[in-house]
Structure formats: structure tokens, C-alpha cells
């Protein structure tokens, strides 16, 4: 019965993704939803999707939750960690025990920070585009249970969906080169981090809370996260329109500029 329910859920997720791909969609938001679905379906604690950038390094593009602590853990993997190994070899690295020094000897800093955050097992699944690898799906568990072959195959299927989502994203005018979609996604991600800072400062709140308010506003208005972020940073959007998070204590709702 449990397997049945999961298959059904998986089918629903594929339909959800397929629906999203039909029109101009928000790739970051979609990947974020997909990361959350990984957590739900695979019974892991956190999931993140990393893409390779122009420097050949992995960058976090979306995560099941946006807590800065988790984002920083993904960010550490620009040059070390299981995702880097997975990216370079093209092979999945699964059921890595973060508590055993011999398995983590190649990337002690990453392992230490992952353990501090409470994770004991991690997995890295490649995002494959034909014969090359464009990124990785990274999973973390706080519990020590192993993922079986069926789970890994499912994780790979979700990783493939993520790849399709990134590469399907089309701007209005261009359609024929997949690589530029990767670049666009990476740029959007940084833009979103920048706007988190802008809003956190205006509202005098944490970046995590600022993001939650920003995202729920964007979703309610069906605005793309990166479009809204660009308008805010460009000064073309009055941020008083966005209901601030409950934690906001910023005296002035809008900064005055000299």
C-alpha cells in the first residue's frame, strides 16, 4: 500500500512538472518545489539542486528549504564534497556515511559542517544531459537508514526531471541553446540572494524570513521570483506592496535615498 501511494504521488509530481513546463515558468520556483518533493518522496531531510557555472564550479540553484545554514552547506560544495565527485565522475554517490572519517577524508570541511547541521547520511545524484553532467541533486538525512536501489532510481528520475526543467526554460526569444538556460538559472539564483538582503535590511528581519514573505507575494501574484527580484533591486517596484514578515520591525517601510 505504501509503495502504491508513493507511485501515485510520483505520477502526480510528474504531471505537476509537465504542467509547469507548458508555458513560461519560473525555473527556480519549480526546482524548489521539486526539491521539496524529493524530501517528501524519498523520506530524506533536505534536498538541493546544484548546477555547474561558467567557472566549472557547482552552485546551489534551489533547495527544499531556504535556510541560510543549509544553503551554505550546498555552497561549500563548489570545490569539495560528494557532489563535486559525482559531477566529475558522472556517477551517483549514494549512502555516504558522514560520521565515518574514512568515507569523508577527501572533504573534511564539508563533512564537519554537514554533521554540525545534524546530517549523518548524504547522497549525490548526477543531473545528466545526454553525455555530459550539468549538476547534481544532493540529499541529506538526519536518520541513518539506507536508501535502497528503488529509492536511488527514483532520485535519479527526479534529477532527470530537474534537468529537463532547467533546459526547457525558454526566454521569449531564444530556444536553441541549452547552455544559456543554465546561465540564466544561475544568474536568477544570485539575484534572489541579493534581494533577500535588500528586503531583510528594509524590514529589519532575517534573510530567511524576508525570503518567505518575498516568495509568498510572488506566488500569490504569479510573478517570477527573478523578475520580481530584478524590479526590486532596480528600484522599479515599491516594496511596500509586499506584506512584510511577522518578524519585521523595520521602522520605515521604505528606505529613503539621499
Amino acid at each position, binding site marked *: 500500500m505504501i509503495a502504491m501511494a508513493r507511485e501515485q504521488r510520483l505520477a502526480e509530481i510528474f504531471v505537476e512538472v509537465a504542467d509547469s513546463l507548458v508555458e513560461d515558468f519560473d525555473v527556480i520556483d519549480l526546482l524548489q518545489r521539486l526539491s521539496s518533493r524529493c524530501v517528501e518522496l524519498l523520506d530524506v531531510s533536505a534536498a538541493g539542486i546544484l548546477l555547474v557555472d561558467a567557472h566549472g564550479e557547482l552552485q546551489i540553484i534551489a533547495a527544499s528549504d531556504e535556510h541560510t545554514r543549509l544553503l*551554505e552547506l550546498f*555552497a561549500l560544495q563548489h570545490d569539495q564534497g560528494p557532489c563535486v565527485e559525482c559531477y566529475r565522475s558522472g556517477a551517483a554517490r549514494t549512502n555516504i556515511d558522514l560520521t565515518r572519517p574514512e568515507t569523508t577524508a577527501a572533504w573534511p570541511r564539508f563533512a564537519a559542517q554537514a554533521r554540525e547541521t545534524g546530517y549523518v547520511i548524504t547522497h549525490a545524484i548526477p543531473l545528466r544531459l545526454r553525455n555530459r553532467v550539468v549538476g547534481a541533486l544532493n540529499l541529506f538525512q538526519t536518520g541513518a537508514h539506507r536508501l535502497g536501489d528503488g529509492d536511488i532510481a527514483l532520485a535519479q528520475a527526479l534529477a532527470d526531471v530537474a534537468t529537463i526543467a532547467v533546459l526547457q526554460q525558454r526566454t521569449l*526569444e531564444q530556444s536553441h541553446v541549452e547552455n544559456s538556460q543554465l546561465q540564466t538559472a544561475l544568474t536568477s539564483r544570485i539575484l534572489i540572494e541579493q534581494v533577500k*538582503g535588500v528586503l531583510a535590511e528594509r524590514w529589519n528581519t532575517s534573510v530567511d524570513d524576508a525570503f518567505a514573505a518575498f516568495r509568498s507575494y510572488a506566488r500569490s501574484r504569479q510573478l517570477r521570483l527573478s523578475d520580481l527580484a530584478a524590479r526590486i*533591486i532596480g528600484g522599479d517596484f515599491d516594496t511596500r506592496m509586499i506584506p512584510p514578515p511577522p518578524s519585521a520591525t523595520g521602522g520605515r517601510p521604505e528606505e529613503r535615498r539621499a
Partner: protein
Amino acid sequence: MAEVLRSLRLDAGGDPAQACARVLGAEGVALSLLVGADRTAEPLWCHPELSARFEELQFTLGEGPGPDAVRTGSPVLEPDLERVRPERWPVLLPAARDMGVQGVCGFPLGIGAIRVGVLTVLCDGDRRISEQQFTDATALAAVLTGAFLNGNGHVNGTAPGPDRMPAWPTGLNRPVVHQATGMISVQLGVSIQEALLRLRAHAYGSERPLGEVAEDVVARRLRFGGELDDDISGPYSPEGGKG
């Protein structure tokens, strides 16, 4: 590629545009920087002369892969201009045809909302851009972004010694750096680009890693001053954080 990047050192002699064109296997290359308050595109390097004329044309008209890449922050790839809908760039397309320009790709220089400039690549008669060319062009755009973020005379707010800062600082991969940049831009009332420069200048001046300084900003242990000094970045550490 690494060798060519070395040969492109900004202080080295020679013609960097020519070197770019060679490494990319392109007909021509032009690099324009966005300058001044209205972010006008100013050509910095062009090779050959055809590239210079095309660069002038696309930015005068505001049409083409260069201006579009600046606007969107994404690469705009049209290696075969014959396949572009005429109404997309109505004035540019016929003019480009007359000039003998067959295909054009624009690669933005920037980080997130920060836009520094654009690299425009003229494609050869193949009317396509290979994966390798794309990878090389984006890598080149990234390296040039790092170099030009250091100021090189076109940033108004002057921070101490930006020219001596490393071309591509470590730490830019960390979300916390971009979050801190956003916060500082509000604290100082400056552009996001200048905010990053101030953050980097502070890290450089205090000999601390960029990420560590950014962590302090995001945790509100460090704040960039309310005074709009042209002096130094002028951050102060509020005692016990903000109440």
C-alpha cells in the same frame, strides 16, 4: 583557455579583443562596459573593425544580442541572423546583412542584478555556436566580470585600492555574500554593484575572508555606516547588535 586568459591580462600589451577572437574562433569580438548613472554601453575593445562598427550600430539602435543581453542578464545567441524574426530587431537586421554580419551572440558580464558590460561575439559563416565556443565565451565573460568589478575607473564610489584586489575573489560562490551585498546597498543607499565593491574593500582592508565579513553583515554584527562618505567603506560594529 587558461593560457589565453593569461594573455588577456588587462595590464598586458597587445590587443585583448584580437586574442579573444582567436581563442573563441570567432569572426570578431567586442567588449562594452556600462558606464555612468544611465549605464550607457561604452565600447572598450573591438576586433576587427567590423566588430567596432557593429557594436556602435547595435548600441545606437538599442537592438541586437548585446543590448538584449544587458537588459535580460542572459546570454542571447543568434548565430544565424537569417533565422531571426524581422520584427525583433527591425532596423538592425537589414543593416547587419549589409555589413556582412552573419550571426551574433551576446554574453552579459555581471553577478545577479549587477551588470558590468557585455561581450559581443560575431559568428563565422557556419552560422552556429559550438558547445566549446559557448563554454569558452561564458568563462571569458566570467573572468572579465571579475576584472571589471574591481572598478577600473568606471565606478563612481571609490574604495581603497580596488585595483589590487584579486580578480576573482573567493567567496562569491556563497549565498551569504550576495545577501550581504543586498543589505549593504540599502544601508548605504548605493547600487548593488557598489555595495559589493564596498564589501570586498572592507574584507580586503581588514584582511578577512569575504564570506566571513558577509556573515557578520547578515548576522548584523557589522553594519556599513549611515554616512555617505566617499572615504572608506566606514562600517561600524554596533555593540550587541541591533536592539
